[in-house]
Every structure is written in C-alpha cells, then in structure tokens.
C-alpha cells in the first residue's frame, strides 16, 4: 500500500513541477510561427501588412502567413497537416466551425493560456465575445466579424421616385419597394438579390428572435439534438424569399460570393444583401459607374423584435507545439485583435472592429462621418437585443446543415417541393447527422 503511494507521487511529481501553462515561457531565441488564413483577393495584402507590423514590433518572432483558400479549404488543409503532425500554429476558421473545432482535440483554447497573456474580454463587443465562447470558455480569438447588410443603389431609388434615405426595413416593405422598382422602367433584371446561402436564413431567424436548434440554440452546455428551423419562422422566411423569386422581385444568382456582387455592381439589381465586409468593395463598384450607394439593416417581418448575430471568423491555435512557439502564436492573435490592426482591417474591408476601444477611436477620427456606410453594421449590431436566439446557434454539423438548407431552398425554387416539405426534409437529414455527430463527440 505504502509502495503504491510512493510510485504514485513519483509518477505525478514531474507533472506537478513542469505543468504547462503554470509558468509563463519566455521567447529567448528566434521563433517561427505558421499562420494560415482564408481571406483572398486584396485582403491577402492587408493581412500581410498587419503581420509585418507585428513582426516589426516583435523582432524575435517570424510569421509565415499563407492564404490557404476558403474557410472550408483552410479547415481541410489544417486537418491534414495536424494528422501529419505539423499543424499551423494559428489558423482561421468560420464561425460555424466553433463547436466542431472545440471538440476536435487539436486546439489550444484561449482560456487555457490566460496566465501567459492577459486578454481583456470585456473590451470585445458582447455578441462577438459570446459567440465564440462555449459555456463561458473562450476558445478562439475574434478577428473578422460581420453581419449581413442591405445595400441599395441610391441613384436607382431616386430614378424610381423612391425615398433615397429609406431602404425597405421589413419583409412587407421589401415586396412593395420591389414591385415599384420592377415597374419603374429601369431595365433591372430584378430589383433584389443575394447569393444562395443559408447564412441569411439563419440571420432572419435571429431578427425574428426565433431559435434555430433546440437546447437553447446549443448555448447552454448541451449539444443540440433537434433542429427547429423548419418551424413557423423558417417557413415564413422561405415563403417570403422564394415567393419574391417567383414574382420576379428576387434574382436567383446561385451559390458563391461573387455573382450577387457582380449583379449589383453592374446595375442588374438595385438592392443586394451581402456581408458587411463588402462595404468597401461595393462602394467602389458603384462609384466606378457614378452611382451612389446606401446601406440598411437586414429586413424583418413587421413587428419582429430580434437582432442580428455575427458571422465571419476567428483565429484558432493548434496544440502540440513547444510552449515558446505557442506563446509567440498567442502574441500574434492578440495583436491582430487589438485596435491598430482592427482599425486597419475595418477600413480595408468593412468587417467591424471587434473591440469597443477600436470603435471609439474610429469615431474620434471622424471615420464614420466621412464613411457613413461603414457605421450601419455597427449600429445594427449595437441595436440588436442579446438573447439566446440572437447569440447564434452552436451545431457540430453546421456545414452539412447549411448545404441541406440551401438544397431545400433550391427545391422550392424549382417547384419540386413546397416550403414545408423542403424544410422538413432538410431538418430530418440534419437531425440524423446531428445524432451521429453527438454519438461520436459525447
């Protein structure tokens, strides 16, 4: 009996002495950190610029930045690299991957390193901070946060005799304005579009303050077991959406993130919904044609009391690296979330700054006075009440759920299924996938 105790103490001793995370490591020599992100186009340069500034401030740390394709591509490459034992220290992931990644066994949650580097979570906007926390634990570092936004062509609104300062704010007003634009002789393909993406479907649930899945949207520590998006709210949304397509108010441009922008930029439509991260790009597209652009909130059914949730992505840290490298990675993600980097990022894209202090600084600079369209997204977020429904849902099989919902909407477009049938089918399949995921992740 005594011997067992001695053996136990001997076994535990090294662990107790060298428990990682207890002692802050130090960066003594040069350290190299890999950073993979999913922001293409002009954003590659923008991120490189931010990282260069970080390296200038931390001469001991070298960061290899790599654009690794879409969020999904980046995720798959990271998974493959992790299996081969060389995951990038920092990688970029979409918001809907949160629950899956937290249960992946390949990450170092932010909160596990809180002794090393103090992060003032209260400085983050509440919806941003909370979206990425599971049962209060912070897993990843907010980087690029967005919401959908309604963009409209003010010039076209003026030509059609509509109020150029009042974009439609409700489902009902959207149909009314859409019909007016249709009859205006502007030669539009249709008045309105957005890309075929489940994100809008999810956001409409939020503005209606309706749950997307059970177990409090998966927010209260238990995995969701059943989806609720085929309920009344979901049906109302898809009825409205596909109804507008049928009536020629809405142009179906298919999936992807470029067709809807192109349609808006070339004047085929007068209104588009897209991510707030497109403010910069869309302003430029319309300015090229001599048109003026306005922005408005995500429309909602008359009387709906909810608000938007955030989308976008965060930076995750993988595990299995020496402490010194993890510390360098931690410093990097923290730097990217701080004011200087966030302000630069906001101005170059339209993603909002994730910290309140950064927002204040932008205000003081007079940035919003000169660029009011950049403010709309902030206002929309700040005016959103924070409830379990507007917090956004946590689903392990979110990517699959999205694909199923999008296919369902296409089936309604094609007239193969009614709204209820299509949503019920997507729901049943998501439930099945969720059950399997839960079984494997418990």
């Amino acid at each position, binding site marked *: 009996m005594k011997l067992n105790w001695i053996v136990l103490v001997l076994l535990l001793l090294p662990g107790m002495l060298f428990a990682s995370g207890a002692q802050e490591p130090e960066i003594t020599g040069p350290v190299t950190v890999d950073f993979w992100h999913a922001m293409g186009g002009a954003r590659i340069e923008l991120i490189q610029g931010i990282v260069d500034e970080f390296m200038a401030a931390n001469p001991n740390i070298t960061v290899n930045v790599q654009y690794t394709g879409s969020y999904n591509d980046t995720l798959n490459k990271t998974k493959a690299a992790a299996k081969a034992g060389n995951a990038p220290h920092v990688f970029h992931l979409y918001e809907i991957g949160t629950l899956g990644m937290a249960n992946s066994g390949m990450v170092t949650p932010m909160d596990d390193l809180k002794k090393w580097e103090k992060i003032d979570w209260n400085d983050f906007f509440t919806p941003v901070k909370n979206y990425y926390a599971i049962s209060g634990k912070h897993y990843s570092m907010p980087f690029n946060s967005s919401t959908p936004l309604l963009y409209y062509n003010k010039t076209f609104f003026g030509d059609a005799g509509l109020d150029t300062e009042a974009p439609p704010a409700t489902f009902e007003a959207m149909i009314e304005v859409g019909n007016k634009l249709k009859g205006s002789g502007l030669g539009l393909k249709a008045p309105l579009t957005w890309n075929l993406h489940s994100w809008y479907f999810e956001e409409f649930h939020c503005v209606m303050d309706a749950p997307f899945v059970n177990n409090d949207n998966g927010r209260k520590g238990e995995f969701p077991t059943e989806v609720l998006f085929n309920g009344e709210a979901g049906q109302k949304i898809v009825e409205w959406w596909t109804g507008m397509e049928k009536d020629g108010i809405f142009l179906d441009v*298919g999936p992807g993130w470029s067709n809807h922008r192109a349609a808006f930029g070339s004047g085929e439509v007068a209104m588009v919904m897209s991510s707030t991260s497109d403010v910069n790009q869309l302003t430029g597209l319309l300015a090229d044609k001599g048109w003026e652009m306005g922005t408005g909130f995500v429309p909602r059914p008359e009387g709906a009391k909810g608000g938007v949730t955030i989308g976008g992505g965060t930076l995750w840290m993988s595990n299995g690296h020496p402490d010194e490298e993890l510390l360098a990675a931690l410093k990097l993600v923290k730097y990217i979330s701080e004011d200087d980097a966030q302000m630069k990022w906001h101005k170059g894209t339209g993603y909002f700054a994730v910290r309140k202090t950064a927002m204040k600084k932008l205000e003081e600079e007079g940035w919003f006075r000169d660029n009011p369209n950049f403010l709309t997204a902030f206002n929309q977020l700040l005016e959103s009440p924070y409830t379990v429904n507007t917090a956004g849902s946590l689903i392990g099989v979110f990517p699959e759920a999205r*694909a199923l919902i*999008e296919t369902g909407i296409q089936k309604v477009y094609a007239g193969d299924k009614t709204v209820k049938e299509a949503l019920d089918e997507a729901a049943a399949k998501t439930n099945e996938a969720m059950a399997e995921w839960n079984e*494997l992740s418990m």
Partner: protein
Amino acid sequence: MQSYFKGKWLPYLLLLPTFFILIVFLFYPAFETFRLSLYKVHPYGIRKIFAGFYNFRKIFTSSDYLHSFTTSLVFSAAVVVLGLFVSLMIALLLNQKIKGQMVYRSLLIWPYALSPAISGAIFLFLFNPANGYMTFFFDHFFGVEPKWLTDGTLALIVVTVAATWKNLGYNIIFYLAGLQNVQKESLEAASIDGAGAFKRFWIITFPLLSPMTFFLLVMNLIYSYFASFGLVDVLTSGGPANATNILIYQLYRDFFINSKTGFAAAESFILFSLVVVMTLIQFRTTGRKVHYQ
C-alpha cells in the same frame, strides 16, 4: 523463337518495383478505404466506432445518393457519347487536306491543356446568371433569359457540354492518330469498287478505328466519373437542388464539407468497384468485337 529467363526468381525481382508501387499507392489505400468504411468516424478522427455495414446500408437507402447515382449515369453516358461522336467528326475533318491544318489542330487540342477549374471559370463567364455573355446574348437577340445555371436541367446540360468540350482535344488527338494509320490502299480499293464516302467510312475506317474507340470509351468513362469534379465545383457546386450532384461531387461533399470520413470511404469504395465492374464489362463485351489490325 522466344527468349526466356533461366533463373526462377529473376522475373519476380524485376516485377518487384511495379508491385511495390501498386501496393503502396493502390492496394494499401484501397484496403484502408474499405476498412474505414466499416466505421463511424469522428470528424477529426479522434474516435471511431465499428459499425459493420452501417455506412453502406445508409448509402443505399439514401434518396440523395440514389439520385446522385442516376445523375452520374446520365451525365457520363452523355459525355461519352457526345464526346466521342463530336471528336470523331472533327478528327475526320482535320484529316482532310486543308490549308492551315496545323493551326486548326493546335487550336482544337487547346481545351485539353486547361485545368478543369479554368474551364469551369470560362463557362461561368459565359453562363453566369447575373451577367454572363450567353445570358446577355440570348436576352439581346431572342428576348429570353434561360436560367442556365439555376435551372436543374439546363445546368446539367451546361456541365455536360463543358465536360465534353474540355476533353475534346484528348479524343481528337487519338482519333487523328488512328485515322492516319488507316491504310490508304484499302480505301482506294473500296473507292474503285464504287463505295461512296459514307460507305468507305462505315465499312473500313470505323471498324479499323474500333481499338481506338474502345480505348477512348474507357478513358472517357473514367474521365466523366472522376475528372469532372472541378467543373461541377466551379459551375454549380452540385446544384441547383442536386441536379448536377454526380457521385464524385457527393463524395467530395461528404468528406470535405460534411467531414463524414467513414461514410465517404464507403462511397469511395462503391465508386472504385463501379469502375472495376465497368471496365470488366467493357473488356468482355466490346473487347471481342474490337478489330485489332
């Protein structure tokens, strides 16, 4: 007089490198795929639950998978038939003595040099629902706006045409080579006997081309099943409403988007078996009728 190896082991030794490569890159992965297909696998691989033929049962009872199966059949049949027919016609024309033959040949072989993603992007430019050239063309000249990529049937047609176009160059090269090997004497003899152009083609050229046709049939079938992924991904992402969701794309979705490793392994195994079976059937049936010179 046939020469042969004296040593009993030498032939095996010489075959060893080939077997090594086959085992490492073909047999072992195939076996591993089959093994994985018997499990439910956690998206990040940290857990596996043995599930027997659960994944296979799920596949064969999934309406989506069966739909994808039919779509694949229709798509491949169309790509193979259309591709072989058009490229044989073009090859016949190219085999004539015409001016600037080399230029035409190079231009016609061009599409084959493009990657599927680039070909997809070209077709997307043409058929983009927002501001594609074809969309504009039809609207301007005929006053109609077909929903090229957002209508199921049209989207499948566009993808089929794109896949056929992409592989034309490959087929043309082989058919041209085949045509140049057809003995002029036989054709001349037939001419003298009074056979017209069509008859000469049907009785002499076509049978003599049959080894080439057979080879291209196999290659195009495999191409349509596996290599058309990029086109589908860029053009339609398998949509609208799964109308272009061919088996290889469904496999991509299940592995790379839905992260269902076990399920995807089962699909992969089925696809693999399918190709083996198709090749066997072709060798058994067509193979006998093929006329080798």
